[in-house]
């Protein structure tokens, strides 16, 4: 299984592959300076694995479950690459508790029942120690009962709607309040925005996000109001009517959570309708560097995005990460917020396993709270007892070259609050 060609790496030539390994070789020193070289003998398999996981004296098997095909492959490719990079780097450093990580990749094919089937296969048949995977809320919802029933561990990389907390999931992306509130405050304070027009694709994440946004705008921002709230079916490609509605309302801010193929159509048509950054302030919570690839930098330049990570972040961790990523996947590859969150997953898992001294899911779940990662590309992160991450919020302004310029950053780490009081 491990020697199976992974679809993402397939196009790599041998030279590229070698370069990639070189990139990894430089990682250990950077990533884990205080790392003690674990060796398997210190941690006998019988001790670190009491629940019949696929862990041997030399190897630990983990699963990776994303959509390599179907409509979601567009988004999930970055996560697949980042998780693989992290795992390769960890292996290059000697693995986890002296054991190399072997990955079993499964394709969720953008289909939630397939996600459920494959997750069950990974847990029940392959007995993987943990799974890195899922992207959409729907896929996570489909696999969650299975992870809880079979007692597996899922590292979920996407910023999401919250309202969920599970012993069996570590959420390495932001829950909704972490992503939304700072951006709205910033818009209100710095941009003097009073009227907000909320636009989203029609599913749980945008709807919950907009609900939180509306409560915050109406309840916490001074003299502000929501002048429009619109949802469009996933895959919708015609936004001219919506744009006219926006023009009718003349909001100070368009607050957008449009996703997938709709995203591209939305920004191209905004630009064509004369709504550009020079005339209109737009803040989105659904556009990362990955999406800009499809939208085209020229179509979104000047608009703002609220994320916790941008590729352009200026810190040593990130520089090393970007360098390694580009070495592995080509100089033109880009890294978005979710890609970085995906990269965190294996590292957090490794740190947790080492802290717990065991691969057992129960012990990992218990040990996760308080795990710190000083080497994260986004900066310092810490796992909260509720299995979400403390993280900063940042506002980036889109540039024509497809990158974001960070214009604001929350001064403190924001505490994750998946069930925010007063926002439900």
């Amino acid at each position, binding site marked *: 299984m491990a020697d199976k060609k992974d*679809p993402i790496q397939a196009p790599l030539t041998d030279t590229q592959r070698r370069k990639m390994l070189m990139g990894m070789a430089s990682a250990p020193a950077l990533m884990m300076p205080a790392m003690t070289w674990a060796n398997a003998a210190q941690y006998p398999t019988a001790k670190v694995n009491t629940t019949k996981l696929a862990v041997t004296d030399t190897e630990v098997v983990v699963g990776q479950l994303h959509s390599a095909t179907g409509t979601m492959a567009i988004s999930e490719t970055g996560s697949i690459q980042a998780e693989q990079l992290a795992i390769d780097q960890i292996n290059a450093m000697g693995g986890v508790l002296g054991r190399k990580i072997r990955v079993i990749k499964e394709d969720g094919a953008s289909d939630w029942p397939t996600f459920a089937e494959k997750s069950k296969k990974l847990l*029940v048949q392959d007995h993987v120690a943990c799974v890195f995977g899922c992207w959409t809320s*729907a896929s996570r*919802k489909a696999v969650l009962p299975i992870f809880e029933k079979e007692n597996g561990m899922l590292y979920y990389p996407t910023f999401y709607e919250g309202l969920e907390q599970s012993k069996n999931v570590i959420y390495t992306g932001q829950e909704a309040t972490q992503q939304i509130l700072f951006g709205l405050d910033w818009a209100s304070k710095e941009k003097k925005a009073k009227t907000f027009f909320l636009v989203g694709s029609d*599913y749980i994440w945008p*709807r919950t996000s907009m609900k939180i946004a509306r409560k915050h705008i109406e309840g916490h921002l001074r003299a502000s109001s929501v002048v429009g709230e619109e949802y469009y*079916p996933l895959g919708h490609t015609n936004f001219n009517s919506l744009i006219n509605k926006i023009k009718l309302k003349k909001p100070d801010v368009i607050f957008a959570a449009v996703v997938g193929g709709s995203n591209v159509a939305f920004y191209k048509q905004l630009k064509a309708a004369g709504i550009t950054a020079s005339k209109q302030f737009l803040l989105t919570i659904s556009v990362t560097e990955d999406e800009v690839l499809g939208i085209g930098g020229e179509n979104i330049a000047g608009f703002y995005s609220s994320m916790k990570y941008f590729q352009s972040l200026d810190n040593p961790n990130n520089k090393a990460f970007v360098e390694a990523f580009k070495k592995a996947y080509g100089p033109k590859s880009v890294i978005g917020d979710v890609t970085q969150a995906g990269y965190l997953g294996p590292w957090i898992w490794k740190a947790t396993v080492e802290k717990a001294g065991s691969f057992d899911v129960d012990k990992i779940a218990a040990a996760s709270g308080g795990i710190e990662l000083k080497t994260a590309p986004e900066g310092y992160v810490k796992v909260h007892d509720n299995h979400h991450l403390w993280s900063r919020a940042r506002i980036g302004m889109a540039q024509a070259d497809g990158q974001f310029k960070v214009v604001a950053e929350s001064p403190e780490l924001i505490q994750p609050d998946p069930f925010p009081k007063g926002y439900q």
Partner: protein
Amino acid sequence: MNALKIWIGKSGLGSVLILALIILVVFPLTMDLFRLNLVGKYLTYGFVAVGLVMLWGYGGVLSLGQGVFFGLGGYMMAMFMKLEASDPVTTKIQSTPGIPDFMDWNQITELPFWWEPFRHLPLALIAVLLVPTLLAFIISYAMFKRRVGGVYFAIITQAVALIMTVLIIGQQGYTGGVNGITDLKTMLGWDTREDTAKYILYFVNGGLLIGAILLCRWIQMSKLGTLLLAMRDKEDRVRFSGYDVSMFKVFAFCLAAMLSAIGGAMFTLQVGFMSPSFVGIVPSIEMVIFAAVGGRMSLVGAVYGTLLVNFGKTYFSESFPDLWLFLMAALFIGVVLAFPNGLAGLYESHVKPLFGRRKAKPETTAAPGDGTPHTSTGGKPLSRGAPISGDVQGQSA
């Protein structure tokens, strides 16, 4: 005893018996629970495929919206189980305890009235059977009375599937939206996620499927079956023999819908969630492919086809992750181009002659074609027109 033997031979029950043995004995003995559960899931699609044999193979009407009925059946079951899973104690964290979590997320504070009947299992089960059938009746009555058929019907059913998906996704406060209805646990307190429950559900599912095949077999052997076949080839003749052709098609469509709904309900029970991704166009077309691969004229073949395609999908996607779509594509195109009668057709034209023909005594009531070689030999368009292939074949072995 001899009479029984003849009857079994005549009605093609031998092949049903073999299938029943495979499903109810061979699979459970040879597979671990995980694989068996997968088979159970695939067999729920088998209901759809069997329905399509009746509708498409026999009735000559192709529907690209069977997912609608599969989904509806599944949703009805899921609604019942979701309500049971949403008792006020387990949902006390919500702002309105006692309603399904997704309603709470969508600021709904009261259970919609049309959810109320789903608190009761008998009502839910009746709804599983009747609601999809009723919808099928309305759609098909309007269409067939106006003689919409063939390609048009197929495309209109596609539109229905699309509308249903958009409705379910758009009304997420009431339906769970894109996520579907998830995290289903119990039925009347019985934990459907337990291993024993999985075994029981598998056998119930398998038994129901065999029952469905027998029912369809019985219909095929009745005058109604003869008429369906007759209609497919000489619709006008049937009409001018005094039959209301449209009602026969409506019946076939409703039958297929009801079978699909049973499959959907069994899916929900075995898999533990229902999602709009079953309602749309893609799964509906895939289900047609199951029937096509198995042989559109063969009830048993349809089940084998379903199993084959799904095993293929699972195996290919695990073993050749970057090639599996090509392999599936090749399977579809290959079946259509080279084996229009699917597995059953292959069996009829290639395997069966090897055994020689044991010609039974001709009986006037028997299905036609008594022992004459079939026309189902590969890509000839003619073979599709010929209604006789697969297990319709009465007397030859």
